[in-house]
Each structure stands twice: as structure tokens, then as C-alpha cells.
């Protein structure tokens, strides 16, 4: 999706949150109450931009409030929410924004796969495939062997999720899998 830069993507989410959720206070009032921001993305590599959290906080007009960049691989989103939750639960903040983004379309698939595979041990694993599915696949093989998991069962998960995605307005490329129905 080359239509937007990463902070422009973040703005779409931020405005939807403020404007479309039937909040009882106006967007400027809600925004004015935010006193902590947790902001996360998987890898600076994809965006080819360090300190994206600074770009995003600035672009949304939330500076000079404290913002912290959060990373924990694919769990980044959850960790970002956890960081915001800790700010509230501890009494440090009254209102905290948890925001996340990724811009993966700027590299080709093979490079994207290599970047993701860098979230594996660089010296002992990455060179053995440079692709993330090669780290999941051994788990699939062993789990299948141990639990007699069939390909059909795995396919049911995929088909179910693809079918639910077709009636979701937001995905960029939902696939209508013609094979198999539940």
C-alpha cells in the first residue's frame, strides 16, 4: 500500500479511535487528556526509520507527552498495550494511548522474509533459511508427529479465518479459498 507514509497510517487509526467510537467527549478533549504514549512496531528495518515513535507522537500532535517505543517481535502490540496498562494501573497516567504500525510493503518478499528471520539467533539460526516459516515448520512437524495432527485440521483453521476475513472491510487482500468448507 504505497499510498501512505507510516505516520499517515498511524493517523488513520488515531482518528478512527477518536471520531468513530461514540465517545462522549470531543476528539480535542479526549486527545488533551492523554498523558502517556506507548508506541510500537516490529522492526525499524521495515520502515527504514529509527525512532518511529518520535515521528508518530509528533505527527499526531501529542508531544511533549512522554512516549516510549516498545518492541517484542510479533508480540509488540500486546506489549504496547501492557505498557500503557502499567502506566494507568500504577497511577502514573490517567489516559494512555497504545498505538502500533508496520510498513512492510517497501521491501520485496524475500527481503521481508530475511528481516523477519533476523528475529532468530543471528549466529546459529538465521543463515539456515533466512525465512520465518522455517522456524515454525519444525514445530509443525514435531507437533504433528506427537499429536497426530492432520493437514485437514490445519486447513480448517486457515479456511475459517479466510472466510471471516472476507466480510471484514479492512484487509487489503482477503483470499476466497474455494477448497473445503466447515
Amino acid at each position, binding site marked *: 500500500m*504505497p499510498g501512505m507514509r507510516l505516520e499517515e497510517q498511524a493517523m488513520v487509526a488515531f482518528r478512527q479511535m477518536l471520531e468513530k467510537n461514540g465517545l462522549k467527549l470531543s476528539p480535542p478533549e479526549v486527545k488533551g487528556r492523554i498523558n502517556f504514549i506507548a508506541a510500537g512496531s516490529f522492526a525499524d528495518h521495515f520502515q527504514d526509520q529509527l525512532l518511529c515513535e518520535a515521528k508518530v507522537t509528533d505527527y499526531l500532535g501529542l508531544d511533549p507527552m512522554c512516549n516510549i517505543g516498545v518492541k517484542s517481535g510479533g508480540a509488540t502490540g500486546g506489549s504496547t498495550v501492557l505498557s500503557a496498562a502499567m502506566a494507568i494501573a500504577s497511577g502514573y497516567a490517567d489516559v494512555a494511548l497504545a498505538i502500533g504500525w508496520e510498513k512492510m510493503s517497501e521491501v520485496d518478499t*524475500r527481503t521481508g522474509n530475511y528481516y523477519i528471520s533476523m528475529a532468530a539467533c543471528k549466529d546459529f539460526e538465521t543463515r*539456515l533459511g*533466512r525465512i520465518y516459516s522455517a522456524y515454525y515448520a519444525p*514445530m509443525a512437524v514435531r507437533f504433528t508427529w506427537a499429536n497426530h495432527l492432520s493437514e485437514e485440521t490445519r486447513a480448517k483453521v486457515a479456511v475459517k479465518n479466510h472466510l471471516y476475513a472476507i466480510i471484514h472491510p479492512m484487509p487489503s487482500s482477503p483470499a476466497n479459498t474455494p477448497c473445503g468448507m466447515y
Partner: protein
Amino acid sequence: MPSEDGPIQFKGQSAQVIRTDPALVIEWPTSVTHRHTYGKLSPFFKGLAEGRLLATKCVNPQCAEHRLWLPPRADCPDCNQPMEWQEILQPIVGTVYTYARVEYAGAGIELATPYYQIDIELPGVCTIFKGYLTSGEPQIGMKVKPGFRATNPTNTILDIYWTPVYQELIERA
């Protein structure tokens, strides 16, 4: 005399425009070389080039874990004390714990695909060691033995590879 383009000469390459709709998209090439250190694990990689498999072991009598670590670590994660090197001596026979067939690999892949990535259980080692097969097809429970790229080392983990134990028996017959 200032050049036609402007008073300060542009010394790079113009960014190529690859799309204009829905937004202007340019190509932005990058190329990076790191001078990466193997640090305290240097003996392991030197060992591979010599055809030797080195592991580390915690020797702290107060620590409960005394099995070998492969991949090796310089410091014990349980008691944080420095570990010591111990060579795993030949004949080395491991058991395939699990595997993956790599067909579509990421950018920069240095092995010809398709090939099998395998995870190997070794006696006396508390972890499982990831590697690759250079012949045969893996099965969980299959026995494998290591080979080393000692003649033209790559100076990476790829300097150790595995082959099924039966292969040697077939070749000898």
C-alpha cells in the same frame, strides 16, 4: 563556475521513480557491511573449521545444570558463572528431533534449495542443535552424523552439516 543543476554539485545517483499513483514511490537502495564479532564463542567457530564440535558446560558445583550446551554459551543462564569448553568427541551420532524442508528461502540465502533443516538431539547435551542435511531425507528418530567444511570454511554455522548414518553403510557396501 556553478554547474547547471545548482551551486553545490549532486554527487549521488538520482532516485528512480517506480510509481506515481496513488503516491510518488522512489527506489532507495541500501547496502551495509557489519564487522561482526563472535566474541567469546570464537572457539566454537574456529573449531568447526578444524572439524571439531565444541560445547560449553557449567562447572560451578553449586549449579544444578551440568549437561553440555549446544549452541554453546560463554555464561551459564542458571547461575551466571562463566562456562568451560568441552569438545564433543567422535564418533558423534545425533538423533533427528524434528526438521523442515526449506524450499523458498529469504534474501541472501547461501545454501542451494531445496534442503532439509534439522534439529538434532545429542547425548549429554541439554539443548537441541539446529543444522542441515546434505543428503537423504529426515525422519524423527533418524540417526545422523556431522561433517565439517574444513577445506573451504565459510566461517559461519554452515561449516557443520549432517548426513544420515546409514548413508555410510550403503556407500561401504
